[in-house]
Each structure stands twice: as structure tokens, then as C-alpha cells.
């Protein structure tokens, strides 16, 4: 690739995160995109791409009109839910590398609490696979699906609800000092975690689940050349990868073996290393997709940050805290900051590498972001 065409993230933008935005999802999308453009110092007239998730309700052409983008040259949608937080960036980056577009906005905006509430069967049916074979059995939410998928791991490695609770308490402690977080100034104790109700007995408690909230998030992906002309340091997209194995399902992923999942994750890590020369375990900070707390445990192991079966010890020893071996989700993650389908975690990675995060990892130069696929970001 011509080094000038290297994809970079030059702008980030968010609305506030709340339980009731009081405005349309299109407005949230437009506000977040405008904030990302202003952050980059790029006039809307020079934006020429819009990428989101298939699940997003806003329409590219209406968003284009809101923002005043004269000619839209690139559109794309990442499939499913959380996969979109990495795949949407990859779709934008591909357009930049190929020269199909010069400034692509990636957005996700939802009224996940005041609108169609995110944890309900209705929302799940929009993303899950299998249809009546699952819903007729009462197997009909993301939390139930995830509980079925993860319990083998928890049994095999002796991960208890208290182990999950210790991660959640740490995440909520970080969120409590992040003014952007829904749970700002609202830390949680282990006792409160353990007495919270079962969402899916006996695996997932209320506080193991990500937030249901309203809000919009956006990033501006452009070329190193264009970012350089803007005169601001941009964050380099070192790698952007997906690696879906043949047996995979998005939600209701209960028809394959743990060995197949391990192979799939190994393929993803191999692809990240091939693209960037950097192994995910070598980064300075990790943003691990945490729709439910156990996914942090498996991600730590799948990305080689700790050994298989060791995540609960790694977390209990404080290694995922700010001063630990691998600081994880310093914004509080999707459990503590907000659930914008993971795109807020990509924004947090950018903030960490800019040195402007609320809970800053000192001197962070490289970051991993996971969610379906994965991204490796580096300071320019």
C-alpha cells in the first residue's frame, strides 16, 4: 500500500449517553458525526463516506443531507450487532486504502433504552439466527443466548459468579471516574453484584450485563495523507480483521465445539499479526467487548493476554486495572460507560492513544479493540 493511503482515525464524536435522549436516532447519528468532523477539523463538504451497522435505523442519504455532504461516494454496513464495532471500521478503512473515498464517517446511534429496549426478545430477533427453533423454546434474548454459549467455559475453568463480580466491580470503579459514563460516580460493591437479580439463572446477573442506553458515537476514518494536511496527530489503524469460522452464528452460537471457537480466534490473532507485525498481547491497553462480563475473561485468553483458564486469576490479581499488566476498558466498557454497540470502546482506544482519556493509561502507544473481529491501533 502507498503509505499515504494508510487508513487512520482522525476524528471522534459522541453525544451524551443517557437513559432517555429525547430525540431521534437520526439526530443522535448526525450530532455524533458532526462532532467527529469538528474534532478532526475537516469540513463536512469533504466527507464522502458513511458506514454503520445493519442494525442501525438511520438512513445514509438522510444523514448525508443533515451533515451537508455534497457527494456520498462510499456506503457500507457491517453485519449483526457487536461485530460492527470492528467490521465497520474495517469497511471504512478498505475504502480509504483503495482510494474509493477520502473521509469516511463510521457511526452507530440508538435509543437502546427509551426506544426499542435493547435486552428484549424483540431486539434480539432483529439480530439472532435460528428463528422459531429458538424463540418457541423461550430462548429469545441476547443474555440467554450468551449464557448458553459461555457456561461450558465457566464450568471448565471454575469461573464463579463472584469472579465475574470482581471484574464488574473493577469496571464500575473505572466508570465512576469517567464523566462520560452512565455509571459516573456510581461505583458498585461485590455484595451489590452478588445480590443483583438473575437475568439468566444460574449464569448471568443483572450487573453482568452491559447497559441499555441512548446515544450516538462516530469516528472519522481517512488517509494518513489527508490527516497530515489537517495538522493533527491521527491514530493509525495497524490492523483491522474479521475471521468468522464456518460454524459460527451471531447469537445462539450453540451448535459448535469450543475447539472450533479456539481455531477461529487463533485465525483472528494470526491475521492481526500478519497485518501489523504486532501481537495483541503486546499492546498497552485493551478494549474488550463486554456485552456480558464473561466475555472479558474469554477475550483475555483468546488474544493471548493470559493463558487459557487463567483469566479469573489475572483479573483477581488486578492485572486488568490501570496499573496492571494489561489495563482493560479504562472507560468502564460497555458495562460501565455506555452500550453503543462497542463503537464507544473504539473511541476510548483513540482517546487513550491521544493521551486524553478520563482514566489514562500512562504513555499508551498501542491499543487492541475487540468485538466480533478486532482492531490494532497505534499512535502515529
Amino acid at each position: 500500500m502507498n503509505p499515504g493511503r494508510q487508513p487512520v482515525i482522525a476524528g471522534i464524536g459522541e453525544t451524551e449517553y443517557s437513559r432517555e435522549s429525547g430525540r431521534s436516532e437520526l439526530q443522535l447519528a448526525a450530532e455524533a458525526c458532526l462532532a467527529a468532523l469538528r474534532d478532526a477539523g475537516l469540513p463536512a463538504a469533504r466527507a464522502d463516506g458513511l458506514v454503520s451497522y445493519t442494525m442501525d435505523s438511520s438512513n445514509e442519504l438522510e444523514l448525508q443531507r443533515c451533515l451537508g455532504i455534497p457527494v456520498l461516494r462510499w456506503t457500507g454496513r457491517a453485519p449483526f450487532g457487536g461485530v460492527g464495532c470492528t467490521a465497520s471500521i474495517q469497511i471504512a478503512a478498505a475504502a480509504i486504502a483503495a482510494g474509493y473515498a477520502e473521509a469516511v464517517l463510521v457511526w452507530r446511534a440508538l435509543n437502546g433504552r427509551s426506544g426499542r429496549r435493547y435486552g428484549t426478545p424483540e431486539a434480539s430477533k432483529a439480530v439472532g439466527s435460528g428463528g422459531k427453533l429458538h424463540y418457541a423454546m423461550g430462548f429469545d434474548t441476547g443474555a440467554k443466548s450468551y449464557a448458553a454459549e459461555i457456561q461450558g467455559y465457566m464450568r471448565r475453568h471454575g469461573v464463579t459468579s463472584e469472579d465475574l463480580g470482581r471484574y464488574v466491580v473493577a469496571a464500575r470503579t473505572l466508570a465512576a471516574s469517567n464523566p462520560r459514563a452512565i455509571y459516573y460516580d456510581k461505583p458498585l460493591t461485590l455484595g451489590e453484584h452478588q445480590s443483583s437479580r438473575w437475568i439468566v439463572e444460574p449464569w448471568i446477573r443483572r450487573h453482568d450485563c452491559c447497559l441499555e442506553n441512548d446515544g450516538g458515537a462516530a469516528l472519522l476514518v481517512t488517509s494518513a495523507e489527508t490527516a497530515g494536511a489537517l495538522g493533527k496527530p491521527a491514530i493509525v489503524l495497524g490492523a483491522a480483521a474479521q475471521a468468522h469460522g464456518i460454524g459460527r452464528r451471531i447469537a445462539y452460537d450453540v451448535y459448535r465445539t469450543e475447539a472450533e471457537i479456539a481455531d477461529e480466534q487463533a485465525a483472528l490473532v494470526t491475521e492481526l499479526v500478519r497485518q501489523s507485525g504486532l501481537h495483541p498481547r503486546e499492546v498497552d491497553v485493551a478494549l474488550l467487548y463486554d456485552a456480558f462480563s464473561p466475555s472479558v475473561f474469554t477475550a483475555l485468553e483468546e488474544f493471548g493476554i493470559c493463558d487459557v483458564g487463567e483469566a479469573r486469576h489475572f483479573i483477581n490479581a488486578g492485572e486488568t486495572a490501570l496499573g496492571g499488566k494489561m489495563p482493560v476498558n479504562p472507560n468502564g466498557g460497555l458495562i460501565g460507560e455506555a452500550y453503543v454497540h462497542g463503537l464507544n470502546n473504539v473511541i476510548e482506544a483513540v482517546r487513550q492513544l491521544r493521551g486524553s482519556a478520563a482514566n489514562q493509561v500512562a504513555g499508551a502507544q498501542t491499543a487492541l479493540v475487540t468485538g466480533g473481529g478486532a482492531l490494532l491501533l497505534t499512535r502515529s
Partner: protein
Amino acid sequence: MWDDGAIWDGARAGELRLRACRSCGAVCHPPLPMCPHCQSLDWDTRVASGRAMLKSWLVSIRPDQAGETPRIVAVVELAEGVNFVANLIDADIATLHEGLPVALCFAEVDGEWLPQFRIGAGA
């Protein structure tokens, strides 16, 4: 007919009818229109023996139907080698473990006949 039609027709007739490939013999569940092993479109029906093993389980509460008795959702591995999602009836969640033998039965839920399982080695 939809790809899962045989499952629902079979349940009304008291059988679990799986989709099996006429070309390579592989059982495909959840049913797909094309065989993932040999890309054949030619399907046969294989009636499941009803023997299965418990793999995972959870209590399903439907938040929109608070008065409803919670159901146990179970993922079982059928003797035919594929996983199947159904309810486990007459079971105590505290006594379940991976590998527990379970047997196929049928029950009418919300006006629809569904494949279900109960603890035991079955026929």
C-alpha cells in the same frame, strides 16, 4: 416449504424429523437449504432416535410475561451428532450436569407442539 418445516410437522406427529443429506448422509441442524459438507440440495428426513445428552442449560424468564412459569432451556447433543435446543421438563436446575442422559418427548406450548426433553435414558 421453509427449511425447518419438517421439524414442526414432525412434532405434531410425535417425531423429531431432522434434515439429512441424500448425497453425503450428513445430518444438518439447524436446517440449511444447502448441505454445508457437499453443497447438495437433495434432502431426506431422518427421524431422531430420541436419545440425547445435556450440554448446557438455563432458566428462561420472559420479562414481558412475568406471570409465566419459567422454563428450562437446554442445549442437548442428539445421538445423531448434532446439537438441538429445546426445553427440559420436570427437572430441577440444581441437579443438572453436563453429559446427563435425556430423552425426547413432546409437549404443546402456546398452541404449538414442540420437541422437549426429560431426564432419562429413554427408549
